[in-house]
Structure formats: structure tokens, C-alpha cells
């Protein structure tokens, strides 16, 4: 008998009824936090939900491993951060008229004042610096945990965070209290 290749892992990771129930509870409990984390990374509410779905769907595929992991949330965070980075890599040109009704697409939600300024400042950061800030100040992760989520060293985390904060100091959202 020939040993199956790595792809077989996915086949074997079928969830039984109990596992499905367990996963459903897990997904429901993590959903709000994942959406908010993804929103911090993307600034787009709907994109955030899509990315959160992607992260949980991948967790579903590997549920046996995820559920036994010491920190399933770390696994989810890593998938989500990667998904947010790779979201726009495909390119397609499709500019053709369609049969849309005469309606307006709503603009961004009512993010005004401080929140809007903070989001704007965050999105002037490169993706990795933005992720470091979000993971530190929203998720309250340590350097090591952030490094695990981003697939880099703790030293890189510290340098990225330092650069990100230097840029954020220029933002009106954090201008008050600035000692520079």
C-alpha cells in the first residue's frame, strides 16, 4: 500500500455530527471578534465579514487539528491575517455595462470624527505595520504572539510597531497628548 500524500489530510478531516455542533458553537462565539479584527485590518465592513468567513471555513476544513490545538484562536488569527493580505492579489478587468437597477450604493458607514481619523491613519500604514498595531492594541497580543500570527520574528514585530507608531503620531487621531 502506498502512503497517501498530504492532500489526504483534508479528506480525513471530515467532521462528524458532534464535531459539527462543536464547530458551530466555536464559529458563533468567534465571529464578532474576527469581523472586528478583519475590519481593523481592512477598514471595509463587508470585506471583513468575507475574510472572517474565509478564516472560519478553513478552520472547518481542518477542524480536528484546530480543535485539538493549544490555541485555536492563534490558528484563526494567522489565517485571517494572511487572508486579508492576499485578498487583492488576483487581477481581472471586467468593465461592461450590466442591468443594475437605478440605485445608489451606500458609502462607508457613519465613521466620523476620531474613529474616521484613526481608520484613515491606520490605512496609511503598510499592511504588516497595520496588522502589528491591530494585533497589539486590539487583540492585546505579545510580541511573540504577533510574530506567530504574521510568520515573522519578534524582533521584526518590534521594529514594525515602532515605525507604525511613529507614523501614527502624525495623525490627528493621536495628536492630542503627543509629547513631540
Amino acid at each position, binding site marked *: 500500500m502506498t502512503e497517501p500524500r498530504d*492532500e489526504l489530510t483534508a*479528506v480525513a478531516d471530515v467532521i462528524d455530527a458532534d464535531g459539527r455542533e462543536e464547530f*458551530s458553537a466555536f464559529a458563533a462565539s468567534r465571529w464578532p471578534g474576527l469581523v472586528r479584527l478583519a475590519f*481593523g485590518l481592512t477598514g471595509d465592513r463587508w470585506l471583513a465579514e468575507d475574510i472572517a468567513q474565509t478564516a472560519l471555513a478553513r478552520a472547518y476544513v481542518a477542524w480536528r487539528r484546530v480543535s485539538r490545538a493549544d490555541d485555536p484562536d492563534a490558528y484563526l488569527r494567522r489565517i485571517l491575517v494572511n487572508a486579508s493580505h492576499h485578498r*487583492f492579489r488576483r487581477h481581472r478587468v471586467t468593465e461592461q455595462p450590466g442591468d443594475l437597477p437605478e440605485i445608489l450604493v451606500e458609502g462607508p458607514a457613519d465613521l466620523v470624527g476620531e474613529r474616521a481619523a484613526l481608520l484613515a491613519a491606520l490605512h496609511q500604514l503598510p499592511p504588516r505595520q497595520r496588522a502589528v498595531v491591530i494585533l497589539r492594541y486590539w487583540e492585546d497580543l505579545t510580541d511573540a504572539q504577533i510574530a506567530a500570527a504574521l510568520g515573522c520574528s519578534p524582533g521584526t514585530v518590534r521594529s514594525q510597531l515602532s515605525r507604525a507608531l511613529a507614523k501614527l503620531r502624525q495623525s490627528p487621531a493621536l495628536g492630542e497628548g503627543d509629547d513631540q
Partner: protein
Amino acid sequence: MTATEDRELRRALHGTLQSVPPSPAPVEAIIRRGKRIRLRRTGAAVGTLALAGIAAVAALAPHGAAGAASPALAAPGSVVPGGVIAHGTADGQPWRLTAQNIADPGYACVPAITLNGTDADPVFPNADSGAVVALGSSLPGVGFGFVQVAADVNAITVDGDVSVPAVTVAACGMRYHVAGFAYSLAKTLRVTVVNPSGTWPRVFTLPLVSAQPSGKATTPENPGLWINTSTALATGDSGALAWGTLPDGQGWFIKLQFGIGGDCYELDGSSSHGNTQMGYCGPISTPDGPETIMALPLGFPDSGTGATGYAVQVSPATAVLKATLSNGSSVMATFCLVDGRKYAAFLVPNPLRLTKLTWLDARGRAIASTTAVPRYGYVQFQP
């Protein structure tokens, strides 16, 4: 950074992100999406196993009803009339596996093996290939399968002692030598292709529809979606169903990949900042079977909002598919033929919602309508 700055940034960030009210967790949509990912991986893995010649697994006859599967009858070497591969009764419900054309009338023939004349698996001559399917809550604990074998193979053996004869059926001018059967999802049994030459039996793998605790029949995964041992997902056709541009200039595009993985739809959004996409697979129906209404929600990168793409495989009698939206406006869906089958698709930008679908014939008369439309994934509806 000073401690004051640190606190200020944390406070501001928490205030900002806490103000985002997530929608209810779409657990079912997440699971369907996970299944789609796994379905693709399963195809690759099963192909590997088939090549490796690993022992087969399947189980005949649900709930102890061994022998419930009946092969179609025909003289040796002849083609079974009507394309019926096997039929029987499972949990009191009749079932039938048939080889038939699933293209709309008047278009190039598309051969497939169907279960009860609906859920279809496009098929091509390929000895030593097989597929399994289950119907979920409508027939829990029961799976159905078929195995294509070489013309000189008379039967397959299940669980070492149950022989399932292979018959020859025809569809679209092609012949297929197939053994079909029903099996219990609560048991795992061995399938062997009997080699008439009397040498060592040939064995190969069928994928499991689902795994479950020993002795416990569960609702199978992917209801109506066949899982094939072949990896030839490209045997089907693909096509663009609808496309357009949002008022803010972002493009969108709904496409279909039709094949042995099911009817797989994808909604793509494009902008100057890049692309995003969402996709699901649904069961393949026959022209007279139920229509699958697929919903594909997607966020668009530029506008900070989203839209839901809808795609429907429609019956040949449908001339117009009218979508009524929550603001009272309506959209006439774009029709497109893919592999001789008619599909309709359209986009509903947020915050609008699809509230009703109406099928109209060529004279503009309503054939059917439904308000049971999904926001994620698919539902099936028989017009």
C-alpha cells in the same frame, strides 16, 4: 511611545472596532464554504488514492437492507434500455440511478448519471472511476454510489460477499459499464472490482461522503453533490453568467464552472485597488428538476459596502427570471447558456435585498414565484 499615547491608541482602537456591529454568525454559510474547500481537496486526494490502488471502502444497503439494490436487467453485452443502472428502496423510499442527457432540449448532449432523475454527475467513459452522493436530511444515513468498470468486468463486490452486477447503459451516444448501489453511511465496507481473468482482484477507492461515529447514521455532507474519484474537474464547461459595474465604478462578474464538482458559482469584484471573490458549489439539476437559487454575498473594496450575486439554473421553459428587490424595483436576470444548460444571474447591491423571484414564460405569464430566497448559499425550488 509614552504611556499616555499607549492608552490613547488602545482606547481609540477599541472604541472604533467595538462600534462595528457584526451580523449574526453565518455558520451554515461558513460550513458550506468549508465543504467547498474540502470538496476540491478531496478530488485531488481521491485521485491520488485511486492511482495508488488502495483498498476500497463503501457499504451496501442501508440499515441492514442488504440486497435492496437491483441492477437493471438486460441480456449480457446489451445496453440496458432507459439508461437505468440500478434501482431499489432505501428507508422505504424508492431510488434510481440513471445515465441520461442533462442538457436543455435542442443543445449538445451532456451525459450524466442522475439520482432519482435530479441530482446529476456529469460522466465520461472512464473505467475504474466512481462517485458517491447523499441527500442529507431528506434521506439521512443513506449514500448512493456507482463505479465504472471495464467492459469485461461482470460485477463489483462489496463487503467481500455482496455482488453488485455491472450493466451497460448508454447516454449521448456513449456507453458506460457501471455498477450502482445504495449503502449505509453508518458502516464502512470494502469494494472490490472483480477481475474476470481470475487473477488478483483489482481494488480501488471510493471517497466517503461523510465520516461518523461507528454505528451512528448521520446526515451526510454536501447533500446532492457527488464526490468523484476522478480529478477531471475541467471536463465541464465554464462561462460568464453576468457582469456589470457598480455606480462607483467597481466591476463585478458572476461566473460558473460546471462539472463533476457540481454547479460552482463565483462572484468577483474588481476595482483599482484589486479584486475580491466569493464562491459556492451547488447540486446539478436536470432540465425538469428543481432549480438551485445560489446567493453569493461579497464585500467590495472601494465603497465600503457590499452586494449579493444571485445565480439560478433555470428550466428551458423559462423566458424571463424577474427579481423583485426590497425597494420595489425589479431586475430582469441575464440569461446565459453553459454546456447546453440555461442559467440566470444578477447582482443586488446592499442595502437592497432580493425579496422575490418570478419565473415567466415567453408570453410574459408567470410560471412560478418564490419569496424563499437565500442570503448565503443555496436553496432549491421546483417551479
